[in-house]
């Protein structure tokens, strides 16, 4: 993905000749700076709860790259990484490790995909798992090992990858293609949950190894290190912003009582909208 990255120009093409009403340098800000200085993030922390919605670097990178491309007059859908999608949704893993079972032979990744719309065409899906540096390198497996991703229900192999323990001395993201699972997926018969299962084997053998030794355990992970399911969709028809606003209002309407009670400022916002 990084190879497709485009540095945003200091002055966006679109602003050429236009009257700049506020700050002439606003568009050159990188998102991280925006987050650091903006009240938005703290606002989200209040509104969307304690867990705080922190966008993964991957999503920020997608936004940054494609918006820079737009400013250069390029269509983001030309990028191979976009899979010609115009909507990319990230679902954060809700699974937990069973600490009673040590070693950790299998890991389940759970995602609530209820917000995926039937009206959108699915064009790709991938699981991105962060692999930490194993705490104890001495006990790490030697020789090549394989990671395999299976569907929880049918145990069908979705994707696999060989890893070299030498490479695991630095952390990184493993990207596994789960498009096979989505291809034949129907909302009605599979519900709104996606369950994926990870296992590691020594080379091509059947011997399963401890995922903790490979740096996949979930303990001590930050929000941004949690695995994400990235789903690429393409709208079948032109959508407008009102769809998002309606959804937002609906989800707030069905919120808890306490949320409603502290929602005076929301109401004011809604009225303003």
């Amino acid at each position, binding site marked *: 993905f990084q190879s497709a990255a485009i540095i945003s120009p200091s002055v*966006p093409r*679109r*602003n050429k000749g*236009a*009257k*700049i*009403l*506020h700050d002439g340098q*606003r*568009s050159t800000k990188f*998102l991280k700076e*925006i987050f650091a200085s*903006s009240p*938005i993030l703290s*606002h*989200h922390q209040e*509104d*969307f709860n304690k867990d705080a*919605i922190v*966008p*993964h670097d991957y*999503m*920020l990178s*997608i*936004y940054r790259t*494609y*918006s820079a491309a*737009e400013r250069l007059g390029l269509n*983001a*859908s030309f990028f191979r990484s976009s899979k010609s999608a*115009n*909507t*990319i*949704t*990230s*679902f*954060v893993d809700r699974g937990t490790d069973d600490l009673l079972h040590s070693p950790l032979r299998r890991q389940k990744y759970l995602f*609530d995909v*209820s*917000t995926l719309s039937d009206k959108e065409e699915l064009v790709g899906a991938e699981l991105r798992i962060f692999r930490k540096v194993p705490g104890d390198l001495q006990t790490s497996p030697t020789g090549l090992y394989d990671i395999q991703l299976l569907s929880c229900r049918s145990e069908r192999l979705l994707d696999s990858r060989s890893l070299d323990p030498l490479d695991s001395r630095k952390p990184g993201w493993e990207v596994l293609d789960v498009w096979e699972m989505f291809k034949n997926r129907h909302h009605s018969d599979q519900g709104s949950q996606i369950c994926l299962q990870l296992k590691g084997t020594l080379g091509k053998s059947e011997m399963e190894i401890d995922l903790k030794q490979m740096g996949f355990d979930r303990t001590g992970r930050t929000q941004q290190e949690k695995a994400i399911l990235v789903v690429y969709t393409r709208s079948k028809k*032109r*959508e*407008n*912003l009102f769809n*998002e606003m309606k*959804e*937002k209002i*609906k*989800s707030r309407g069905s919120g808890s009582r306490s949320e409603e009670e502290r929602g005076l400022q*929301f109401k004011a*916002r*809604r009225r*303003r*909208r």
Partner: protein
Amino acid sequence: TALNNRHGKRHGKKSKSRCSKKALHVNFKELGWDDWIIAPLDYEAYHCEGVCDFPLRSHLEPTNHAIIQTLMNSMDPNSTPPSCCVPTKLSPISILYIDSGNNVVYKQYEDMVVEQCGCR
């Protein structure tokens, strides 16, 4: 011959400018949308403003109907209004937002920025 005043505007009948693209700065925070839009915080959307009067310039890419309507208007302004100055070409922008399930979503929204104005 119309004389220009100090600000470059012409006096009298022709004081309103011809149909063209003008600045329209959108600030999502001011709209109260910053509770679901992560980025951008603001952008330049532009808008179309000005009159579509006779004779229409070709860069305004008028439709045949607009040419007829403008002609009718020039002959009798009371019978027919002038044609409308509207966006004729729009471009998308990328938006990063939080959906109703609290997932972070990137979406390319069509028709968010006016690229070109014309008479329709």
